[in-house]
């Protein structure tokens, strides 16, 4: 009998919905049907059963074709490439569990690598802003239960986070928001009339790239000062109206996205958004949240912060201490400046999502992709190592966009013999230790478990 598995986590966007139901075939190997998933999430679960998926590492040959090799050979190649490089870059982790991110920390330390994640090309500027200004935020349940004024600034959840508005931000009925969307004022700031903007009570169609000025106008107004008649293409009256709604809200929530992080000023657009949130707390309760893109892209930020003190762009090449300075230790800058000489792309597709010039620079050196699927990066790599799909074939802890950890289960068995990210990196680490004739360092003394114990009184 096929079996329905409930409360399944969805390994797509930063909403990290954990209420999916998945129908699994008798043999536990195939996903037959999903419930509650958005169209994209649905695609992921079905894609796992794609018969064309690679199940063995593939090494590029001199003639450009690829040849299947064993995991042992792939691990050996990776370990050697990392040891040989003067400064390897290990990047990605858009679709990896925290166990894998933790395991790669050990590898990167051993390799003297730079460890970076997709935030580098996405919400990295949010980190820069948090460094400078903090982060007054909350969990998504607070938004559902309390928020009566919700701003979407430079983000478009109707497309990028399909169930966000129904689960958390616009439509759900919560404890103090029993009337759902009827009780919420929605404000959208976007240069386009997006599908999210269409849901808004107020849409401020801002001149693209002038977010900083508009935030400054809100702050100036909130402190009781006058502003020019038009700021960033928005009329003063509209700014005053929106500012009034925020000031009079009981719980104001600001969600922002790439409209802030991908344009001029980057981090400072977020920085001033945080200042605005702080100002609003003198009038009412206000919170801000980055619309993180992937279901666990908050994960590396957490794992590497507790391991190295930095959420991304962690340069471990000194061996003695970690160094971080985006602009220098960030993947795109490292690539464009030819500052790294080996590239490992993990659980993401740098081939498709980096500006093509950066890909060209990275391709001058060994280029390895670790990812369940065929992607642009895998198709230009010297070596592609397939791994199990987290959230489908591999369980693990993931961090939702609000940094809430959620334990994602697996729903089907992975293809025979395919490793998880964690297993792969642990084996790469062990191989590096063998090659350098050093002892592996594990935190927990493996094979020496005390087991559960009951206090005797």
């Amino acid at each position, binding site marked *: 009998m096929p079996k329905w598995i409930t409360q399944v986590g969805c390994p797509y966007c930063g909403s990290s919905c954990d209420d999916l139901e998945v129908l699994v075939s008798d043999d536990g190997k195939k996903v037959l049907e999903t419930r509650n998933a958005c169209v994209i999430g649905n695609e992921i679960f079905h894609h796992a059963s794609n018969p064309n998926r690679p199940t063995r590492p593939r090494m590029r040959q001199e003639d450009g074709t690829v040849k299947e090799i064993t995991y042992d050979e792939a691990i050996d190649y990776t370990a050697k490439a990392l040891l040989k490089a003067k400064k390897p870059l290990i990047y990605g982790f858009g679709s990896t569990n925290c166990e894998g991110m933790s395991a790669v920390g050990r590898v990167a330390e051993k390799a003297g690598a730079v460890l970076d994640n997709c935030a580098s090309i996405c919400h990295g500027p949010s980190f820069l802003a948090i460094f400078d200004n*903090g982060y007054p935020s*909350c969990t998504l*349940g607070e938004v559902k239960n309390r928020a009566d004024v919700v701003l979407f600034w430079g983000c478009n959840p109707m497309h990028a986070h399909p169930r966000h508005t129904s689960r958390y931000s616009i439509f759900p009925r*919560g404890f103090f928001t029993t009337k759902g969307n009827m009780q919420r004022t929605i404000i959208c700031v976007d240069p386009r009339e997006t599908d999210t903007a269409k849901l808004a009570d107020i849409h401020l169609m801002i001149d693209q790239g002038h977010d900083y000025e508009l935030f400054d106008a809100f702050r100036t107004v909130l402190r009781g000062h006058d502003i020019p008649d038009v700021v960033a293409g928005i009329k003063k009256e509209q700014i005053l109206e929106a500012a009034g709604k925020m000031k009079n809200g009981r719980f104001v929530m600001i969600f922002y996205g790439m409209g802030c992080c991908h344009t001029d000023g980057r981090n400072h657009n977020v920085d001033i958004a945080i200042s605005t949130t702080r100002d609003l707390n003198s009038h009412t309760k206000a919170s801000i949240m980055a619309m993180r893109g992937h279901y666990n892209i908050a994960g590396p930020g957490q794992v590497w912060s507790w391991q190295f003190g930095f959420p991304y762009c962690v340069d471990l090449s000194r061996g003695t201490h970690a160094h971080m300075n985006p602009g220098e230790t960030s993947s795109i800058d490292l690539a464009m400046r030819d500052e790294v000489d080996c590239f490992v792309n993990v659980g993401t597709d740098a081939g498709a999502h980096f500006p093509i010039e950066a890909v060209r620079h990275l391709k001058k050196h060994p280029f390895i992709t670790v990812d369940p699927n065929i992607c642009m990066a895998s198709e230009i790599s010297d070596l592609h190592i397939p791994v199990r799909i987290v959230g489908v074939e591999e369980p693990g802890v993931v961090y939702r966009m609000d940094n809430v950890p959620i334990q994602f289960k697996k729903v089907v068995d992975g293809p025979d013999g395919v490793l998880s990210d964690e297993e792969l990196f642990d084996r790469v680490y062990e191989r590096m230790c063998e090659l350098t004739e050093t002892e592996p360092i594990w935190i927990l003394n493996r094979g020496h478990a005390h087991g559960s114990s009951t206090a005797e009184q």
Partner: protein
Amino acid sequence: MAEIIIKNGFVVDPARKINGDVMDIAIKDDKIVEKVGSGAKEIDARGKVVMTGGVDIHAHVAGPKVNVGRLMRPEDKLFKSPNAQAPYRIESGFSIPSTFKTGYDYARMGYAFVMEAAMPPLHSPHVHEEIHDTPIIDQGALPVFANNWFVLEYLKNREIENSAAYTAWLLAATKGYGVKLVNPGGTAAWAWGLNCLTLNDPVPFFDITPAEIISGLMQTNEYLGLPHSIHIHQNSLGTPGNYEITLDSFRLAEGVKANNKFSRDSVMHSTHVQFHSYGGDSWRNFESKAKEVMDYINGQKNITVDLGCVTLDETTTMTADGPFEHHLNQLNHLKWANTDVELETAAGVVPYVYDKDIKVCGIQWAIGLELGLYAKDPMRTFITTDHPNAGPFIRYPRIIKWLMSKKAREETLESMKYTDKVIDATNIHSLDTERTLYEIAQMTRAGPAKALGLSHIFGSLAPGMEANVVVYDLNFNDMPDDPEQIERAFLRSSNFIKSGDIVVKDGDIVSHGNKRTFWVNARVKENPQVIRDIHEKFLKEYTVGLGNYSVWDCLAPNPYVIDIDVEA
């Protein structure tokens, strides 16, 4: 692991009333034993002090707000991270060290157990992930309860049995150790931008007061017979004049009896009392009320405290007291992080510079030490810095130095810009007390182990105890004139054996040892109402499924579970 013998040290073991006797300590596997065979590995401790491993009852070392502190403070790492000790992991940060550095530094100081002082239940998988990435030390974590919607509802209706059933469920779900209260009611109010500054301020919407929450959770705790008492961070932290609220909170414990099988006598552990012993009514006339607070504690038997000493460093404040951090941010204008956690709690993080040349900081420094000096029962008064709030834990040796040496205190006092003003507002200058090694061992080992209900494994070198043995390079009979030597000796132990593994030698890490996670599994009789309430709240108000909420066993891979069967 095998047999080890630590020979000829000056043993200081207050739990057995041993004070500097020259003795051997024998270890077999992970336990202390009467004797070992001739093949045992010998460690020469001649001329050095031998104690059991330290027990830290309150530090913020793992979990979401600690990590927010790490994440938002790259400058806490810049030029402030020591060089890694090969072949061990890279160490990062000063006031909020990485998990690796946390484990290593505690081990270097000879600490065996550290309690993470505030775990937001929704974030408990995160806390456990960090714990299992923290080498060497044993750890537990205290989930926060005092602003939790379930608790507020049950206690409002005086349903102690339901409160207990929920508490037991949450401890198991989060793999938590005990009941933590942070700003009872005040943090719940903060969800609307408000606060509860006195014990009788009503909590918005919930129709309950902080006093009722404290009393209710105290009753819940004793109903369950948990190893640790309630562990409370009182209302109105860090505010001039708050000592009266502190005393009011203490009085709620009068007449309450400890009910447990763990030889714990206290029913309330009041944490970081330094932040709660403030007089005056503004920062202008701010003064110490350490004596008033400690006089009350000295007259009681069922309250324990830890100090929360200010160490005069640049550090990072972090607490589930959300409104306090917001308030602090309005004072110092540095960066501010906050997280409100649905149905449960909140937390804030703000960097803070305790500058010895600022009068208020000098007074805060004095208050923490005064509390430690006025205490008549070192078994109920524990050394902490509320790490990292009043200073990083690597300053414990410095606090020990200040408590043991009036000379050291006077030197620090003299180096301040406003020495006279600090002297006027405190009693530190007139206190001649110097704590002994025996008392220090009580305040860092025997005492906290007993308060945590762990005196059957920690806090003593008696045979049968966990084999945690530390050797400090101090001559018991000839203590150094230079107080700096005391600090140095406690910062980097000569040897530390943790659960039978030699983990530190000459101040350096030599093994990752074998760490464990402690949690409490209290079994109560099935309570259908509470189970129904839990299901309903998860369906309607939480944004995480109930089925994904309880911490997986594999996240605490080396558990030490304390099972309790609660008789109805």
